[in-house]
């Protein structure tokens, strides 16, 4: 019983990380129809921000709070300079964002000197409920993810900005005709997605050591999650991430670990093949 709860908590924590990463990717893919190959590097930059703040002597908390804003700025600049040229050609966008990601990743690798850097958890230790230990930091991640999901959903469904976003998603031309600046909206969306990636990176870096590949290890899973859930919806990528995250964390308990890893991909691909529109059908944000 106790180990089951612990396992469920581990599943939940990993799934939260996946959701956090996928949410930003899904928002960008839904809005502009491009799959951002540099998303893993945005996660990496979020983690690197925490490292930078710690190395100049500030507390890790400052870095974690700053990471989303730093990444929003990075996202905004990249969108204005580069990404907006790719909206018409999603395949070329993959190549372009891949190139951006490669440049960022290798720059950070050179800066880190190829080393792995451990970042301590800002809240170390565990708390005990009914005789079971729960890691505090993983709990923080789960709670933060829940807050981000609720906050994003509320701002999409309750605010006027959310209405504009939904309108632009439904019919960009009509939205423009109604006086909504889709240009600004796209820039905002991209910055928001990048900020979410930065937050994810800042939160997960204590769990995994900081290395240049911290973001890319989740990237393929994240893409599959978005496709699995359905592009153009809010709930879709979240559900997809929950499914892929759950499978990734759960399968090694069922089959031998060597097979579990590729099996997740195969299962996800087959589902996407059978149901290309995703779990949630497009059109309802």
């Amino acid at each position, binding site marked *: 019983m106790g180990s089951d709860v612990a396992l469920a908590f581990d599943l939940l924590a990993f799934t939260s990380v996946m959701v956090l990463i996928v949410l930003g990717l899904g928002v960008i893919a839904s809005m502009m129809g491009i*799959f951002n190959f540099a998303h893993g590097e945005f996660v990496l930059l979020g983690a690197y921000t925490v490292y930078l703040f710690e190395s100049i002597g500030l507390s890790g908390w400052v870095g974690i709070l700053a990471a989303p804003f730093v990444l929003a700025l990075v996202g905004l600049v990249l969108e204005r300079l580069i990404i907006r*040229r790719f909206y018409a050609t999603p395949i070329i966008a*993959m190549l372009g964002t891949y190139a*951006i990601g490669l440049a960022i990743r290798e720059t950070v690798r050179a800066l880190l000197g190829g080393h792995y850097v451990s970042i301590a958890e800002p809240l170390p230790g565990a708390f005990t409920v009914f005789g079971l230990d729960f890691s505090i930091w993983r709990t923080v991640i789960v709670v933060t993810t829940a807050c981000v999901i609720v906050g994003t959903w509320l701002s999409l469904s309750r605010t006027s900005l959310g209405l504009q976003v939904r309108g632009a998603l439904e019919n960009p031309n009509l939205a423009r005709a109604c006086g909504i600046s889709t240009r600004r909206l796209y820039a905002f969306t991209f910055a928001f997605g990048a900020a979410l990636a930065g937050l994810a990176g800042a939160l997960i870096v204590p769990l995994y050591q900081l290395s240049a590949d911290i973001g890319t290890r989740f990237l393929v899973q994240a893409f599959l999650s978005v*496709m699995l859930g359905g592009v153009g919806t809010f709930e879709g990528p979240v559900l997809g991430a929950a499914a892929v995250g759950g499978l990734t964390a759960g399968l090694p308990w069922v089959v031998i670990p*060597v097979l579990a890893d590729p099996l997740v*991909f195969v299962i*996800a*691909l087959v589902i996407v093949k059978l149901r290309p529109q995703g779990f949630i059908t497009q059109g309802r944000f």
Partner: protein
Amino acid sequence: MLTEGESGPAADAAAQARMVKRRPPARRVLPNVEWVALAVALGLPLVLGDRTDLVTLATNILILSMLAISFELCWGLSGIMSFGQALFFGVAGYAIALVGRDLDFSDIWAVLPLAMLVGLGLSALFAAFLLLGRKTPTPIFVAFGTLTGSYAAERLVSGWQYVGAGNGLSSVKLLKLGQYEFVEGDAFYLLAFGLLLLVYLAARFLKRSQLGLVLAGMRQNEERLAFLGYRVQLFKAVVFSFAGLIAGLGGALYSYHQGFIGPGNMGPGLSTTAVVYCLLGGSGTLIGPIFGTALVETLSYVLSDVAAIRHIWPVILGLVLLAIVMFQPRGILGLFVSERERIGSYGRRQGR
């Protein structure tokens, strides 16, 4: 009567005047590039002589060119964005390494066809899954399908003890022709060159054939071609499978030449390197990807000696790719080759 009078010699003269006035077709660049490439490739062993490291580099370029051509067939010819071309390359490399290790067999007449068969079979499987089916797949799905396949295979192999796990398979048995064993050097260079020439000619024939014409139409407007009754996805699947065959051949040669094959040789890393080769050189020109391969590999060889640049070489590569995608999507050869020549012409030539 008047009309008959007009269709006489006077009309012929007018027609001839029109013929003269018509802009002469732009000078063809690609054949010249092809001849130069052939001459350079043939002359290289003579020039390099006993610089064995450079001969090895040149052989490597020839082998990786097969991977580049394999990607070119997918992207440049049929518009399939494949982020997993290295998968077929790597799996074939592993297959012949295992045949060498477990069956102690490496005769050229059997292992190279085997590698091609492995590449063909695997890519046909992928094509059947990704491209064929009742619902037309989106290009995004195909791109992610190939990427995922490549990534999953890399992860599987790097955890699988039987195939050497993360260390890969080293000391691959040497390729044999009768009693002769191919080691690194001029003989292997000529072998790789001969095979690349065959591959290139086959791809060139494919591009200029009637199938190539269908593919050219497909690149222009896939939907319209489908309305005309062509089973577009089937054509794509055929070309994709053929590209897999070429990648398989390249992978086997790579494995024999390096004496090593590892999980990284089938992952997205090498797959995207193939994309860089192709786009840098100029996709759609067929010789462009070979040019791109030579350029990238030579530069990275030269720069690896310069300590200051070695670490940022991948950054430069990324920025170059970004610049190409943004400003010069036709690659370096695209600067010299007219759009008409890039697409190719299929009608009967004038003046024949």
